[in-house]
């Protein structure tokens, strides 16, 4: 990996308190750190209210974090003055869940994309048409779609326009916030295919926010699972989503709808997230976790597991300790 990641987030915190429940735990993001390498697709999954969208919005600067840094291409975003920030906005773009609300209904696709290009001067004016055609092909839009207005396009085409606009700014990172949740299954498959092709052709990094485990498994090489503002498990998707270490990830996986149902029902959480049940300083999942025990009143540390998988759970800590300690002792070299 090259030295500077496309996106690095350090201890990002942004909390919201519910005025009707002032003593309950605040929701949002609490001290999340991660990196997205160049050309990497990182998934962020969790239920609604876990803070995944807040994290996405803080990363692109739509929300001011309470604490922590967002570093894009080695530049600390939050340390910049307002005027310098503008030139760096180009480097990180976002695609929202509902394209019908993120496109301008009064602008044709051409004008809309042109605006994005001129805003950041990414393309010389005499080459706009050519670049536009190139981008349209990249995201799988027909040429005649460029002269249409959003209401003349289908849902899938609109989402392609939103992705095209993000690409027109030539960013280093694109945050995709549930980009396929509003689409029908067949259209979702088309857009996912396009995203996968894009990633191999353009080399842009993606932060893919979704609640759909299957979609994340399909498109992401690395995944983070969030619960109540903290990352509870992370690692390569073929590990985290196949042999999850955290009970929450297990429950999330077991709950995912399948064409071929599992032979036996997996782990399931108790009830819904009730903020009043969560005490500060303990494992956030404890109140709903079927495997919770006494130790869970103390927040578990992030434990390293083989293959780059990490989980914040006492059970994972036991699992790691049970494996031969030499594997995890950094002072000894492991020959393999």
């Amino acid at each position, binding site marked *: 990996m090259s030295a500077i990641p496309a996106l690095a987030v350090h201890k990002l915190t942004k909390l919201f308190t519910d005025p009707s429940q002032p003593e309950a735990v605040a929701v949002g993001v609490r001290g999340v750190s991660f990196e997205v390498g160049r050309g990497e697709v990182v998934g962020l999954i969790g239920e609604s209210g876990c803070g995944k969208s807040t994290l996405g919005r803080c990363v692109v600067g739509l929300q001011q974090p309470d604490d922590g840094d967002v570093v894009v291409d080695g530049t600390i975003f939050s340390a910049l003055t307002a005027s310098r920030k503008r030139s760096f906005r180009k480097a990180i773009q976002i695609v929202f869940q509902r394209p019908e609300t993120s496109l301008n209904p009064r602008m044709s696709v051409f004008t809309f994309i042109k605006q994005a290009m001129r805003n950041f001067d990414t393309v010389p004016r005499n080459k706009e048409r050519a670049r536009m055609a190139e981008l349209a092909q990249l995201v799988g839009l027909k040429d005649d779609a460029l002269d249409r207005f959003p209401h003349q396009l289908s849902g899938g085409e609109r989402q392609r326009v939103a992705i095209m606009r993000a690409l027109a700014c030539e960013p280093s990172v694109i945050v995709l916030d549930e980009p396929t949740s509003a689409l029908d*299954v067949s259209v979702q498959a088309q857009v996912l295919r396009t995203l996968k092709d894009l990633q191999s052709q353009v080399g842009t990094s993606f932060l893919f926010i979704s609640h759909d*485990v299957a979609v994340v498994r399909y498109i992401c090489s690395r995944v983070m699972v969030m619960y109540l503002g903290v990352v509870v498990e992370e690692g390569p998707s073929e590990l985290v989503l196949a042999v999850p270490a955290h009970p929450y990830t297990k429950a999330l996986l077991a709950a995912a709808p399948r064409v*071929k*149902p599992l032979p036996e029902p997996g782990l399931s959480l108790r009830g819904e997230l009730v903020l009043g049940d969560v005490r500060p300083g303990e494992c956030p999942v404890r109140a709903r976790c079927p495997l919770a025990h006494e130790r869970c009143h103390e927040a578990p540390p992030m434990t390293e597991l083989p293959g780059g998988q990490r989980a914040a759970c006492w059970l994972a800590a036991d699992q790691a300790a049970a494996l031969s300690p030499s594997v995890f002792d950094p002072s000894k070299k492991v020959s393999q």
Partner: protein
Amino acid sequence: MSDILFSLDELSIDSIRDGERRRIVDHVSLAVRRGELYGLVGESGSGKSISMMASVGLAASGLEVAGGTVRFAADQRPAADQKGLRRNLSRGVSLLFQNAKGALNPFMTVGRQVERALRQKRRVRDLAGEVDNLFRVVGLSWRDLGRKYPHQISGGQAQRVAMACALATEPALLIADEPTTALDVTTERELLRFLARLCVEREMAIVLIAHNLSLVSEYCRSLSIMHAGQVVEEGDLKAIFARPLHPYTQGLIRAVPDVDSPRELVPLVGSVWGGPQGIERCRFSHRCPHRRPDCDRGRPAAVDRDGRAVHCVLYEEVPA
């Protein structure tokens, strides 16, 4: 069969816009047995909600029922008699919608709403007791939630309150129109499991409308798959999933990413209404990899094969 509770027979609906008539539901037939969880699946715009709403007399304005009959218990009448069909809503059909918070009255506590649903049909002796009981049935507690307003409860709780209202009339049939789309995966699974249990315990039939095949795969016994207003495959769910026959069913399954074994997705080409829309033809042919000249010849007849009926010319001449 005698245990059929609810059936549609050749239901057809036209939409009339600017004087132009389009057939948006084309000879849809399906049969739901007593106490069965029945899945109705298709992409958005395939006519699944419209057919079910028309079958209880709630066809939207601008739609005209062009033909077909609806049978519910002993009551059989032409689908065009929308007013008559509406009466079924007070005789054992309940509805559950996608947006539960929208279905509840924002100005009334949820406890009162369940109370009103209970009193709608009959005189209730022990009102407080029955309300409490209904809350318990849907897995909520009246003491915690009864005095709250819809905006103070979560989406999953709101859907359960809507369930309590729907169950208050002790229906024999519940039509659930994408009840879990707005919910989280874990809550979704809980609600589906609950619906499946209700079917068994109360001998209530449920028609579950969904756009995602994988949602119905676990809990439904029978299934019908709709495309552009036509039923393409209908019958036993296990048989259909074991060997999907219609090209559309096969395409739908291939287009969904699989959690357990990642594989390349094969999107369906084109869109639901992108093809020719003549009445007497297959409406999937423009997206079909097995397209043949005789696809345009007429509406494909139902071919019975391994516990399901498939509507495709591919199977018409091939003996089973």
